[in-house]
């Protein structure tokens, strides 16, 4: 299991990370060796084993569908990088015609 630099670039894009050429040179062997180590998992047959998602195997607890949080928009937006009239601002997504 050896990753190629192009694969690392693709993974970085999926993870929305910008990597420089030197980053890719650094990460490619590191990620490959981690995945090689992870490959040890294939040493054991798990065909009849059920996956364990929760360490205590407990079901997800549900709550009643009722409003229990007050609206704190202004408080939450006070720590945002850029807001305007209660909206979070991002660079323009839709081009003008």
């Amino acid at each position: 299991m050896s990753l190629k630099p192009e694969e690392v670039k693709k993974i970085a894009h999926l993870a929305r990370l910008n990597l420089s050429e030197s980053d890719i040179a650094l990460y490619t062997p590191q990620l490959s060796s981690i995945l090689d180590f992870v490959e040890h998992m294939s040493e054991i047959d798990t065909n009849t084993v059920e996956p364990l998602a929760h360490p205590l195997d407990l079901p997800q607890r549900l709550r009643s569908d009722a409003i229990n949080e007050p609206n704190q928009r202004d408080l939450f937006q006070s720590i945002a990088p850029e807001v305007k009239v209660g909206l979070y601002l991002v660079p323009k997504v839709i081009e003008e015609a």
Partner: protein
Amino acid sequence: MLKTIAELSQALQSKKISSLELTQFYLKRIKELDQDLNCFITVTEEQALAAAKTADQKIAAGQAGRLTGIPIAQKDIFCTKGIKTTCGSKMLHNFTAPYDATVVAKLNAAGTVMLGKTNMDEFAMGSSNENSHFGPVKNPWDKNCVPGGSSGGSAAAVAAGLVPGATGTDTGGSIRQPAALCGITGIKPTYGRVSRYGMIAFASSLDQGGPFARSAEDTALLLNAMAGFDEHDSTSVDRPIPDYTATLNNSIQGLRIGLPKEYFEGLNPEIAKKLEEARHEYEKLGAQFKEITLPNMNLSIPAYYVIAPAECSSNLARYDGVRYGYRCENPKNLEDLYKRTRSEGFGNEVKRRIMIGTYVLSAGYYDAYYLKAQKIRRLIRDDFVNAFQSVDIIMSPTAPSTAFKFGEKTKDPLSMYLSDIYTISTNLAGLPGISIPAGFNSHLPIGLQLVGNYFEEARLLNVAHAYQTVTDWHTRMPESK
């Protein structure tokens, strides 16, 4: 004044000392020693002095609990309303949480006095505290060595006597391993015992908060305040919490302790020797030892490095430069905003784990990696369930070595991951574990790990306390210079 929480609590109640004096004493030690050690990211002197005064009023009015007026520190992963919470990352260097984590609210309600927020590996990913955006923490026993991680700041602060107790979080060993490397006591409770609400998420099915202190008794006092059901955490377990101090002095006559043979193969001889000595102490106290097997132990790190990065890549997708935290300068478009914010805001180890997680969850790989890892997780859990049919406690080393030197493992991420070889399986199984000091190799502390069955924190603390009543390793302190 460098005493245990239990002793300080008595001194406060009997008015031999005030919380204000105690708080000033520790704040002064932080000022003198922490510039060098770097345990704290934020020191909250003003709030601490105000909280100490409130605590003194409570004590005077006879309304004090056992933790009222006791100074503590919070790992900077726990959200604190109005006080910066960075998680050791540039991504959150400017983040002030709009609410308190449940652990913070509970410890505040118990009357503790928070002195500040402690340093940590970025987003709790690391075993040496070298991944912090705010610089590494030095081990107070040897300043050329790491304190362990990820809760390195909390562990080093307690070891150096900058604070008598502190909080940590443990996803793969991040409480127990630094406790071992710093020569203090640290407990990771059963998954779901301590609320994760307001505890910044790394790997949600593994993360669990817990306390550090100088003794098992002190961690019991802190855990009393921290544990309990919380409706704000969907995986919080709704079960009654015992008084963890009530059973500390129970006899351990007849206690069955298991020694997993896989943990002792190829073990460092000095650590093996100290474990042998600990075994003799326990035998004198009436415990019986038995060799057990955890056959899938060797698969715990491979499975962990699929599950934890997968959950990490999902959890850390939220850091996009839009709602809070770091944002890059002059983004050209939305993709540029995401990519540059995340590349500039995250450090190397966090990026590595996000990429591993993204890869194992990407189309076509799910079955081979994530599903396979979850199946192995069940096998590891079943190994423990089987072992607990015939023993009450499992004893092992906490870490494969004592504190290592700065830079020793940073070039090879895999060598760093192996620092958690004895602790990770406990997180995969969701079991409680504690690390207690069991001696030294030259001048560096060695940790002993005890793992209990689900929800048996009280028994773990009892067994740890029994050892601490017949040994004095936990009372040793590094010279403070």
